[in-house]
């Protein structure tokens, strides 16, 4: 088992004829992801990396039975592409683009909620269940199949920490890049909930950063639900100057909880193993897993 994507994930690549789309289609196929169709309006009938291209998502669903999507179209067109995938009921839908207008994200996420569809991103490296399915742009070789679930707000830092876990002999069940934008589809809580119910996942690593209060609410959730699996967390941005990116009225709503220290404190209160360096995630989880044996 893994969460959200596995060997049964039948993938559609939206924007498959673009430079990024075709490049990553090759890498996805190399990894063994079942890429069954691509879309590119006006280019239906062609092929990219041996994958049939359709004009519309609907055709791709009807003809190839795809059930999940990765979207490579530029930020300006991400809303259209995402809505087309949502309407077709694909889930999860991974939105790679950086720079999607926040109002577009707001609308996409509201539509997805209405349809019961999972959005990952925008501004995400995607999701990988090592050995089963990669639906993202991450370098595959740093990941290994195993029992640690990883959720992160960052890209390259996730690769760093995943590589550390792998070196320490701790494989991963699923690694999810939540996305670096202010509004994204999945929160730490959503992912903790998924990992709670996944038998294969024995421990969870959370990789947070300054801004917003997703880490604090995750900590509250861990306390409130007496989270049954060990959790370790790293929060990037302790050295960041205060107030650089705190909006005015936004700070009220998030309750002045954007700093790294606030997040680390919240995690400590929740009994989460707090790593001061990225490499400590692997050490702390190893201890926790061996201790529970």
């Amino acid at each position, binding site marked *: 088992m893994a969460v959200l994507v596995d060997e049964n994930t039948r993938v559609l690549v939206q924007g498959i004829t673009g430079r990024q789309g075709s490049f990553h289609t090759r890498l996805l196929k190399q990894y063994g992801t079942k890429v069954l169709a691509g879309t590119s309006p006006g280019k239906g009938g062609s092929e990219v990396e041996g994958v049939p291209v359709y004009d519309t998502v609907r055709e791709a669903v009807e003809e190839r039975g795809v059930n999940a999507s990765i979207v490579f179209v530029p930020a300006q067109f991400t809303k259209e592409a995402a809505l087309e995938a949502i309407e077709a009921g694909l889930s999860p839908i991974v939105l790679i683009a950086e720079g999607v207008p926040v109002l577009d994200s707001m*609308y996409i996420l*509201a539509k997805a909620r209405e349809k019961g569809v999972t959005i990952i991103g925008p501004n995400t490296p995607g999701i990988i269940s090592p050995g089963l399915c990669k639906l993202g742009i991450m370098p595959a070789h740093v990941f290994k199949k195993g029992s640690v679930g990883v959720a992160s707000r960052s890209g*390259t830092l996730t690769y760093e920490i995943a590589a550390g876990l792998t070196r320490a002999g701790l494989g991963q069940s699923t690694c999810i890049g939540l996305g670096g934008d202010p509004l994204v589809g999945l929160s730490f809580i959503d992912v903790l909930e998924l990992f709670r119910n996944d038998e294969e996942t024995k421990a969870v690593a959370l990789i947070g950063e300054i801004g917003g*209060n997703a880490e604090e609410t995750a900590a509250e959730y861990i306390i409130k639900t007496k989270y049954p699996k060990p959790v370790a967390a790293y929060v990037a941005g302790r*050295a960041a100057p205060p107030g*650089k990116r705190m909006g005015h009225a936004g700070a009220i709503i998030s309750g002045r909880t954007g700093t790294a220290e606030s997040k680390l404190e919240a995690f400590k209160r929740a009994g989460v193993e707090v790593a001061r360096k990225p490499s400590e995630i692997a050490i702390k989880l190893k201890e926790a897993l061996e201790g529970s044996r």
Partner: protein
Amino acid sequence: MRRGSGTAMKLFEYEAKDIAGKFGIPRPRGVVVETPEEARRAFESIGGPVVLKSQVLVAGRGKAGGIRFANSADEAYSVAKALLGSEIKGEKVLKLLVEEKIKVKRELYAGFVINRASKSYSYLASTEGGVDIEEVAERSPEKIVRGDVDPLEGLKEYEARYIARKMGYRGKQLVELGAIIKRLYDIAISYDGELIESNPLVETEDGSFVAADMKLIIDDNSLYRHKEYEARAKVPGPELTPLEARAKAAGLAYVDLDGYVGIVGNGAGLTMATLDLVKEFGGEPANFCDMGGTATVERMVEALEIVLSNPRTKVLLMNVLGGIIRCDEVARAVVKVKEKMGFAKPMVIRLVGTNEEEGKRILAEAGISSFDSMEEAAMRAVEFARGA
């Protein structure tokens, strides 16, 4: 600290008010002026006491003396003369908004802001306006009316009237205030507002409402559909240091700090973590510079040049975790910039990814140390800085 959302596009008050006017929100009669003579004429056309408001983007201009009153044309002239060209918190005053002085009965607050948690707009309104709304929220939360707007439905007219009602208004005033709140929302949607607020929104002595101040911050990522502001967004604001301005023009996420370890990384999270490690080992970062997860060679060169031209930089710490970036390209870029700039201080490069061996060989030939582990690299950089 993230590219694309690090610096939002804030409009000047007069620009936000022009938009408000177009949407039918009542605003004080006013004129934008750039010379004392124009201020005199503005006073004459308004024909009564005026307020002269410095058009700057820094917060707290009132307390800093940027807002002053005048009771005669001569006074308007002399006040304008004093304000124009002066600096408010480091920002030069180029324009004044000269407005009729309003008879204030009560100062209100009304605004909309993007709420990360609810993934929607939230509205905030209060009868305690004219002050820092965060303070009001902390001191007397019961005086704040707040809620979320359904992104698929948008704010309804009746919801706007609920807000006005909760603020205690009835009758004609309730309808008028409700309409203003609805229009604020309409502006937010039309202009991709991260934040829109009128503070104060004034209830005048005759019982009508006037937006005495207006603030609108546009989402940077949406500027392609707001062409009128797109060009200006690329002009660095006064809040940026020269290096920050240069980095912004190059599309790099860069923040100047007080320390001495110059830092370049790929990806915001990894770069932040690099800063954190430097601190952890007792060093102080000179800057934050994120080239982006998938930086090109040109971006890399630009980033290195900016960080190395910082006089505080005693040592360079570069952290590259290559997925798509090729390490040999990174190494060549480093050597090229080092030679071009004649940078004689130590460089510590953490390099992992495609063509790693080739990259390390190129660095070694140029006498630059490279590491597999970012922690070792950060520790070494701090040691170098101490020795330097």
